């Protein structure tokens, strides 16, 4: 059992409080996932040609200033570094692969949790109230965000095993369910060059979607292909730079509710998370159909 939430503003309006609203939704999903909490926020874009890298270190004594100096020597920094809890967000001019390669050699204890022009990913062991406060979610702004509360049924309870999983540029996935063919799929994807940081099944789903999209598929096409290739139970919420998508497997025993108003689209494992949003009582509320891709895109 896990809890998933997602919030997507259809257009920019003054006063939108993405982070505060997502934190409220996550808090409602505490009982569904008390092991760990994570979220991805699609906020202000990095300067042209630069990317934001959400990095994590398991070493609590890491000196992020040293990391900044070392990273800055390898890649031009393009904005101030922000340190939050065990995470730091760097703005730098680097390709995703180049950064991951450099870290693997020079700072192997540092993990990339998110990389892209807009995405920032934070995740940690603990309840939503604690984790969202630790990483300052309330104050974050942006166009859309996804969150997850985890009750682990598969693989360890660690920060690295928490959701969201991001395996591609500006792409992340949160998952409620369990995949049964993830080991074989992980092997196949690894042969194609997809890198995995954990033995977690949901990370394989994220890697699968990233791989499909790198091959040229749209998000919708990648998800539709996933209906064939991903075996198991799932409700997925997926974020891209400008988009937001939901998919449930054909059996659809993992719950999901969607809500929509003129201002927002929201997804949650249970309606009570959507009920916290302004205008929820007037929203159109429905349950996404099995094996059907729901996709919203900002243009």
């Amino acid at each position: 059992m896990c809890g998933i939430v997602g919030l997507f503003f259809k257009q920019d309006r003054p006063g939108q409080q993405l982070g505060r609203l997502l934190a409220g939704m996550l808090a409602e999903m505490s009982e569904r996932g008390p092991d760990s909490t994570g979220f991805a926020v699609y906020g202000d874009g990095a300067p042209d040609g630069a990317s934001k890298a959400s990095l994590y270190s398991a070493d609590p004594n890491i000196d992020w200033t040293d990391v900044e100096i070392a990273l800055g020597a390898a890649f031009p920094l393009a904005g101030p570094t922000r340190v939050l809890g065990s995470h730091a967000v760097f703005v730098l001019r680097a390709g995703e692969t180049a950064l991951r390669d450099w870290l693997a050699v020079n700072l192997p204890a540092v993990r990339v949790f998110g990389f892209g022009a807009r995405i920032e990913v934070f995740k940690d062991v603990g309840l939503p109230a604690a984790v969202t406060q630790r990483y300052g979610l309330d104050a974050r702004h942006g166009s859309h965000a996804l969150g997850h509360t985890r009750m682990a049924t598969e693989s360890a309870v660690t920060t690295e095993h928490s959701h969201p999983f991001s395996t591609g540029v500006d792409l992340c996935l949160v998952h409620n369910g369990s995949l049964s063919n993830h080991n074989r799929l992980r092997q196949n994807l690894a042969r194609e060059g997809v890198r995995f940081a954990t033995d977690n099944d949901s990370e394989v789903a994220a890697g699968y979607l990233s791989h499909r999209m790198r091959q040229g598929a749209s998000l919708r096409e990648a998800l539709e292909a996933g209906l064939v290739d991903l075996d198991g139970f799932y409700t997925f919420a997926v974020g891209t730079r400008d988009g937001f998508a939901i998919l449930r497997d054909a059996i659809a025993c993992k719950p999901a509710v969607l809500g929509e108003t003129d201002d927002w689209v929201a997804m949650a494992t249970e309606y009570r998370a959507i009920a916290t949003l302004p205008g929820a009582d007037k929203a159109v509320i429905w349950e996404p159909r099995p094996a059907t891709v729901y996709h919203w895109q900002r243009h």
Partner: protein
Amino acid sequence: MATVPVRTLNERLHRLPADSNDLLWRVINPRGAHAVAAGLTVPVQVEIDGHVGYYCAGMNERATVIVRGHAGTGLAENIMSGVVRVTGNASQSAAASGRGGLVVIEGDASARCGISMKGVDIVVGGSIGHMSAFMGQAGTLVVCGDAGADLGDSIYEAEIFVAGTVTSLGADCVEKPVTDAHRTRVAALLERAAIAADAGAFRRYGSARKLYHFHVDHADAY
């Protein structure tokens, strides 16, 4: 319920004596809470304004529960008697394993509606999702719209009436002839449910009774 926990509400309802004069209860701001008005045993009417979460009116006995909104998973699960009505849609497993009473869903019900039903009557104004009436043992499921895949899989003696299309029938579920007696029964249920539909438009589905006992010729179907 913006200020009162569901436990407090349910405790008050559970403490009502069988001859209570507090016959009408109104619940506001349910905000998707779970187990609202579950476990009622006295003939009161509980009206809930807004969407409820899981297991609303579960195990209901004699009470009438009306949800003016949508309901989450497991609406009226194991209902024994009384009436549960939802003006919107219901999520999966509505009226699961219900023993008696009437469940009315004015909108759609999603997957597994009436799973393992054991005597409850269910009337759905809209459509139902896949695997509905799975292993249904007794009772009647009336669907004014369409039914999803694998309707009535492994069904026993529950009866299903669908006015619209059926995506597919589950194992051992077959279409059966409709007689005047069936039409009369459907009409009576629609009237009790206050759902407007033409009783003559329904087709009937039920068990082929080939999975009741092991038979080697049917081994592939088990």
